[in-house]
């Protein structure tokens, strides 16, 4: 049982979430409804995508703190080109291209110019936000066309086309990481870079790809952001990168690289978002959100750490228990021929 919980962060999160939901259902009747679920899902889309991109980077033992700025920059590109009269598909293509280029710059700095990822992306965090402000002249982008906002509208079952797109991306990422050789390389590079290099894994290409993917995810998140709220403030995406890192940690992705699953990230992002909506139902003032989210994050991690320690101790005990069976055998005289052979082998 203990093993199951520790090995499977997703299960643990689901259990905590289920318990919390049940408690909430009692405390605030009306919380447990399809409508709430739909709201939570659509509220978490931006965080989901940023977390997914961040996860790909963290897996390779790097970090990307510029994704919030990439979100802002690509959203601004989208808004400006739409307002300049570009068609929606063209604007979306430009938006994603912006994210890919921004991610590629990150990847170039880290993988090929060997700048530590925290430093490189801290730099581009400021840089991209700055470019966005220069582009927009520091003004908010409003009056976005209806066509964009319509993307966030429901297409039945309380989901929008955006929700479907995000779910599809998660499925793709899951298949990529689980079932493809290149996906396995992500884990290998993060786990032990030297070993991966030694075994012929294209380490730099993997790192570069991770940053590009992260940039693309951030750009799509920017698109969703703009479609959902209908305008683009200067601070769009500000701070979401840190929340995404928290989601990764909560979802069981090791910051040291090499381990973590898409399912964990998905569950953790939904979990964090559902806390926000639960607080609304409980009529707790919104300024408590950060405090409660932080407290829950720490509690889960602490619990998880303790369980892991316990399991490690058990594994070790089991391994060493082998020695306890030996002494009787040792006292009986052994087969002499065998021993001679062994001594021979040792020469």
């Amino acid at each position, binding site marked *: 049982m203990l093993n199951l919980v520790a090995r499977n962060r997703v299960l643990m999160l689901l259990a905590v979430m289920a318990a919390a939901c049940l408690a909430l259902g009692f405390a605030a009747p009306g919380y447990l409804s399809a409508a709430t679920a739909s709201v939570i899902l659509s509220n978490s889309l931006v965080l989901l995508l940023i977390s997914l991109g961040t996860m790909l980077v963290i897996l390779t033992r790097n970090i990307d703190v510029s994704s919030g700025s990439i979100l802002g920059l690509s959203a601004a590109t989208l808004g400006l080109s739409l307002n300049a009269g570009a068609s929606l598909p063209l604007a979306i293509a430009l938006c994603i291209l912006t994210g890919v280029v921004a991610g590629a710059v990150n990847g170039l700095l880290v993988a090929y110019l060997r700048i530590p990822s925290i430093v490189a992306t801290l730099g581009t965090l400021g840089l991209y936000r700055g470019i966005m402000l220069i582009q927009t002249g520091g003004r908010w982008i409003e009056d976005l066309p209806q066509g964009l906002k319509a993307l966030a509208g429901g297409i039945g079952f309380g989901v929008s086309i955006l929700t479907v797109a995000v779910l599809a991306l998660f499925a793709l990422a899951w298949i990529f990481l689980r079932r493809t*050789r290149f996906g*396995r390389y992500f*884990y*290998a590079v993060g*786990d*032990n870079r*030297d*070993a*991966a*290099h*030694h*075994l*012929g*894994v*294209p380490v730099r290409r993997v790192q570069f790809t991770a940053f590009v993917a992260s940039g693309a995810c951030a750009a799509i998140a920017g698109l969703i952001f703009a479609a959902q709220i209908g305008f683009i403030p200067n601070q769009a995406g500000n701070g979401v990168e840190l929340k995404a890192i928290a989601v990764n940690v909560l979802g069981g992705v*090791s910051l040291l690289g*090499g*381990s973590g699953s898409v399912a964990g990230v998905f569950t953790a992002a939904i979990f964090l978002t559902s806390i926000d909506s639960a607080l609304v139902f409980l009529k707790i003032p919104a300024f408590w959100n950060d405090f409660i989210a932080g407290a829950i994050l720490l509690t889960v991690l602490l619990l998880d750490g303790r369980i892991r320690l316990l399991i490690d101790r058990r*594994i*070790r*005990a089991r391994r*060493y228990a*082998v*020695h*306890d*069976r*030996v*002494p009787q*055998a*040792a006292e*009986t005289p*052994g*087969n002499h021929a*065998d*021993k001679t052979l*062994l*001594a021979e*082998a*040792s*020469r």
Partner: protein
Amino acid sequence: MTEDTAAGRAAQLTGIWKSYGPVPVLKGVSLALQKGEVHALLGGNGAGKSTLMKIMSGLVPANAGSIEIHGEPLTHASPALAQQLGLYLVPQEAHILGNQSVLENICLGLRPSPRSLRKRVEQLIAELAVTLDLDAQAATLEIAERQIVEILRGLIRDARVLILDEPTSALTPFEVHALFQRVRKLQAQGVGIFFISHKLREIREICGTISVLRDGAVVLSGPLDTYSDAEIIDAMSRVATGDAPLASTRSGSDHGPVRLAVRKLSGEGFRDISLEVRAGEVLGLAGVVGAGRTEFSETLFGLRRQSAGSVTLDGVELIRRSPRGCIDAGLVYLPEDRQQNGLFLEAPLYWNASSYLIHRLPFLLRPGRERSLFNGFRQSMGIKCTGPGQSAKALSGGNQQKVLMAKCLSAKPKVLVLDEPTRGVDVAARNDIYALIRQLAAEGVAVILISSDFDEIELLADRVVVMAFGRLGGELTENISVDAIARLAFGAGEQAHA
């Protein structure tokens, strides 16, 4: 022996030059490896063996020269390309992906999926007569198991050229035997093998050709049987052989009072270990990997918790031991894995040398004194480095080990526990370390020497205690021989399997 023809060559290195900064490491090395040849490569610390092998396997670019593998050139430094051409390097320090399963570790980078390769891996494991849980998480593997993973990586890749960099340093004699059989089979299949080792006996057993590197150049090359051991050692070290060969250096029998007494110590991985060491005595603690020697010594040093027993140093019981408490009491431990537990690899050498004393130094450190402390050791031990400010990772294995010894000695130990002090150390540096151990014993230090290399124990120990399966397997006070040690070390184990 196969004749040297271009078609018969598995690998050809021509005029390889390499320098790190202004220091040339390789000065135009040329080597030819025939198909079906096991070619021994020897060299002292800093001779350039590792660099040469790294260049061959595409890990490091050469400054000049060319490499051909089965006639095809290695056009740029890329491990992927080298493996495509059929070359694989089994490194001395295993590269492990801790989060992945053992099977995934072995098969990473190969085209077929790990699942489809499982059968073949299992077959190889059976052939090598080792035990390895393919589904275990690789982080839980011991050093020896990690090395087996590396060897399996080389074997599963169907390499046409295989480089084995000290493949036996963590293996038991039994596993070595099995590995050699496998190597012979590969040889018969026409695989060319570079075999790097410091153990002349192993080289004599398995290799047909030998090349010796010294200071970045080949100084001796040819069929192995035409050279005597003395000639080979002579070629390796510029120092005359007079002090080099492994003369027995056992000291007299009159030792001082009991320094360290361990009574019925139990803990994770071992049980009821009792032993005594006297001042000036070298006690060999032998046993195969996994016998519990490292667990025992780590518990002794307070790194792990004991479950029962007592430890007495100079008549004073050490209760609730901590590493710092042990150091202050005069019990010092040199750990087995110098990369992981021993050295601060990035830090300058003099930081390393004073690291066991750091808690005794004043709040404001005096770098000048630390440097002169290190320089003292540098001189007395012959540590090869550019200066006390050099970082430890830049040194070769033997020199790193000397720095580690210096660190231990700086604490002025009464009892020194050395865990595999010569693993991955070349013959010349090994002899330096042996001499040092002898000298320490002569100065009255009680030494516990832990080693899987039974030759080393035979050579140095005044008395031997053998551990097998976490318990005391026996004790030898006279007629210490490799055979006798092996019998005790394996006897209990063989019974347990039967």
